């Protein structure tokens, strides 16, 4: 499924230059951290034998240059990462489709993420980056990395302890849907709570969640619970063929996906373990499989438009 990205001579020149820069960054990092750790160790030793002031002076003599070295190299690291994204990842995007663009500092805004209704948990911390936009035939789409978290606070003997939990760490994909609709339909992974809700909805209707949609596809129902503000519209969107396509898409994803259909668009959240489209700092750039993981994700997202048949525009929405 992953398209192989053949590194062109132009990109190879960029990679060669970046590799030199990377080595410089790694060397400066080792030296900087070496000086800081060595300085701390030396400070302890000298304090034991020659007193605190002597220890502090000797320690500072090593720690300060180490800190300055790390500070100086941080700009180079940012520039190295930015150039990798623009010139190497950018070339990989163009190899898939010329219409694809990357905006490393942009993403899917928190307000859009919330309004997509993919998740209902309140967000306490939100980060998004690497917005990729494109168009396949008539369908415009974009996706970005998103890390949304909520926090819990527990009281301990030493005060309050804050723990952060992921709502989503992965990619949110959105595309213009090929049918018009007015309501909201959300497809969420089935968990214990939603299974209970679905059971009540099915068996004791008067106390169950009236928004739950009972669909005919057993495989789909095994993985997902569907909620909608309009039962007929939910079925208009989730045709038998569309459910099969979502099942296939879900099977190829490591974790169960969530989907929502709202404001004439569809949103899909893919939980992932890795941060994609990042330049490696402590690993070489000159290995043939450098971009394999990034390309796999990229082509996966790009193929969604075909997989879900979003270019079939035989309805009134063109």
């Amino acid at each position, binding site marked *: 499924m992953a398209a192989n990205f053949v590194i062109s001579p132009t990109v190879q020149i960029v990679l060669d230059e970046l590799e030199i820069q990377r080595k410089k960054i790694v060397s400066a990092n080792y030296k900087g951290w070496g000086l800081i750790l060595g300085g701390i160790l030396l400070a302890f030793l000298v304090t034991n034998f020659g007193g605190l002031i002597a220890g502090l002076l000797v320690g500072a003599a090593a720690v300060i240059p180490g800190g300055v070295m790390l500070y100086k190299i941080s700009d180079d690291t940012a520039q190295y990462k930015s150039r990798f994204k623009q010139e190497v990842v950018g070339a990989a995007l163009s190899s898939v489709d010329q219409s694809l663009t990357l905006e490393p500092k942009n993403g899917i805004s928190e307000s859009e993420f919330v309004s997509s209704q993919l998740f209902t948990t309140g967000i306490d911390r939100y980060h998004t980056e690497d917005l990729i936009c494109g168009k396949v035939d008539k369908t415009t789409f974009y996706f970005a990395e998103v890390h949304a978290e909520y926090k819990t606070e527990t009281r301990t003997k030493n005060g309050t302890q804050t723990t952060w939990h992921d709502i989503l760490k992965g990619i949110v994909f959105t595309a213009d849907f090929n049918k018009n609709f007015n309501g909201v339909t959300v497809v969420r992974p089935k968990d214990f709570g939603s299974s209970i809700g679905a059971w009540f909805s099915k068996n004791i209707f008067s106390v169950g969640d009236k928004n739950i949609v009972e669909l*005919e596809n057993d495989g789909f129902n095994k993985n997902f619970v569907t909620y909608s503000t309009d039962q007929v519209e939910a079925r208009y969107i989730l045709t*038998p063929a569309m459910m099969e396509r979502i099942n296939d898409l879900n099977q190829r994803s490591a974790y169960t996906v969530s989907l929502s259909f709202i404001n004439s668009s569809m949103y899909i959240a893919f939980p992932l373990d890795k941060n994609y489209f990042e330049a490696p700092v402590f690993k070489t750039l000159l290995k043939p499989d450098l971009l394999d993981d990034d390309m796999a994700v990229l082509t996966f997202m790009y193929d969604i438009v075909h997989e879900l048949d979003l270019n079939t525009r035989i309805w009134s929405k063109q």
Partner: protein
Amino acid sequence: MIIVAVIAVLVLIIGIGIYNSLISKKNQVANAFSAIDVMLKKRFDLLPNLVETVKQYMQYEGDTLTKITELRGKALGTNVSESDKLALDQQIGSAVKGLMVSVENYPDLKANTNFLNLQSTWTESEEQIAAARRNYNSTVTTYNNAVMMFPGNMFAGMLGYQPMQVLETAAEERKNVSAKELFNS
């Protein structure tokens, strides 16, 4: 004494719950059918416009157009049962499908913007009706389960509620509408 009263109240609450649930499910079925009816009405309303547009270009499809107009008249007539209306809709659907296939022979019609809009609206209505039928079948299945399973069957017997028939789904409705098959076959 208190325990007996508590049990009696609980039984009463459960009884009311089941009774209300059955009525709610029956109403849902009626509601689901009316959703099909609304979609059918929308679809039938498209026909005069479609026939008028097509008539100007198609010289040899007069019989089909007359048949479509007649079927529409029947479907919109008074005293048409629900099942008859659905049967008439299927006949209209096949006639229009045949018409769409003939469009291939009329390049001017294929290029007409009004016709293209009508064509996509028609396709949309096909899927909307399919969705409404699936919704109806889902509510009927839920209702039938409630009516036939214990303890709902006890109340259903008292209320005179009988299991209902689900609508047969044509094989074509089970798959997504394909533009290629519809217009280019």
